[in-house]
């Protein structure tokens, strides 16, 4: 049985842990706000760009651009977005489990799958396991900005344009609400232009400068970059949300533990006092 001093020490140690988790929760909450603001700020650009692509795609022969080309999907690439750091609950576990499912599914269809990873957690996961072809890895990106995302996007576009992969998919965490994240699967390449064009300008004929093919050719890679950027922002916001929830429940667990140990401590102290009294009383009796 633990002595009183041991219990006391344990309580102090849990209290310290609780302070840390509490601080981490607050940091995550602040970062979450910033990340969410960025997700919202990035929306107009990607929406407008999609409208322009829809407008252009209707006018250019489909197979004319390599990023629109539909090939028999024999070699598939999966880009998985994970975090660099842990302590965010089931965030990485969830996304990696889903990623593995997707890979298995593609492999069952006889496709060759290559995995590209963003984030240290994903890298470690796929490195430790056999049966996966791990391609390029990006980690320790810190706060996401457009340039970092564009780097990732450019690499993927180059590989696709060179014919190394026939389809590219994206697995990442989407923000449903602060408390809720959803793992989603998105097709990144070939680009599928939306069929519903911008209702404002759909019917009119445009003047193009230099010409529609050139503009489409330069805008499509940008579009992929923007998609990656958006997904990275979403997944960063999700990470912060997951971290906040995880740290909140850790803080609450610590509180429960402290309560339990305090109760135990008090009980034991009582028992010790009672024992001492009865010893004294017993001693006094014996002297009579």
């Amino acid at each position: 049985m633990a002595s009183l001093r041991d219990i006391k020490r344990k309580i102090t140690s849990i209290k310290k842990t609780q302070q840390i988790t509490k601080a981490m929760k607050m940091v995550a909450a602040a970062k979450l706000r910033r990340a969410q603001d960025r997700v919202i700020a990035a929306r107009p650009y990607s929406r407008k760009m999609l409208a322009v692509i829809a407008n252009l795609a209707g006018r250019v022969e489909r197979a004319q651009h390599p990023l629109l080309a539909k090939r028999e999907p024999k070699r598939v690439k999966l880009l998985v977005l994970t975090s660099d750091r842990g302590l965010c609950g089931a965030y990485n576990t969830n996304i990696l489990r889903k990623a593995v499912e997707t890979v298995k599914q593609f492999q069952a269809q006889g496709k060759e799958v290559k995995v590209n990873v963003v984030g240290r957690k994903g890298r470690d996961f796929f490195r430790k396991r056999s049966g996966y072809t791990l391609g390029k890895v990006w980690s320790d990106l810190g706060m996401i900005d457009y340039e970092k995302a564009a780097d990732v996007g450019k690499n993927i576009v180059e590989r696709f344009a060179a014919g190394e992969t026939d389809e590219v998919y994206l697995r990442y965490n989407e923000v449903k609400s602060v408390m809720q994240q959803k793992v989603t699967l998105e097709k990144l390449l070939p680009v599928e232009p939306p069929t519903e064009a911008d209702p404002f300008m759909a019917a009119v004929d445009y003047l193009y400068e230099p010409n529609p093919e050139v503009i489409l050719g330069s805008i499509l890679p940008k579009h992929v970059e923007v998609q990656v950027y958006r997904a990275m922002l979403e997944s960063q916001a999700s990470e912060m949300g997951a971290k906040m929830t995880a740290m909140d429940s850790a803080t609450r667990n610590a509180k429960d533990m402290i309560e339990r140990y305090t109760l135990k401590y008090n009980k034991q102290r009582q028992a010790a006092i009672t024992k001492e009294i009865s010893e004294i009383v017993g001693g006094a009796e014996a002297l009579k």
Partner: protein
Amino acid sequence: MSAEDWKKNMVAEKGKMLLEIVAPSRQVVRSERVDEVIAPGSEGEFGVLPGHTPYLTALKVGMLSYREAAEWHHLAVDWGYAEVGPERVVILAEGADRAADIDIAEARQAKERAEKALSEKLEQADYEKNRIELLRAMIRIQVAEKHGQK
């Protein structure tokens, strides 16, 4: 956003144009009462007045100006696309900064960095990257000096 909402959202004041300038990380400008836009198209600078024919072009790095009544505003933009319609102009720019927001000292440093890098022997890709950096910095300095905070 449904088509209906979109339409409601996209209307300019009568006789004016709606101008939207968006960069990947944020919306830079949104104004419903623009009278004139001058932008650096890839094939040369162009001006837009209300009632312009639908026009879609690539942009190069340069200065973009727009006028609300008698008031001119200036921005430095880095590449992108312009979609022009009779009542609206949408600019998708890789980077866009209002003249007043440009940090001249920072731009000068960027210029020096790029110049220094260019004076050394470089691989093709690095050369391109630094050449673009240099162009960007020069335009930013120009715009800021001419129209930025005095």
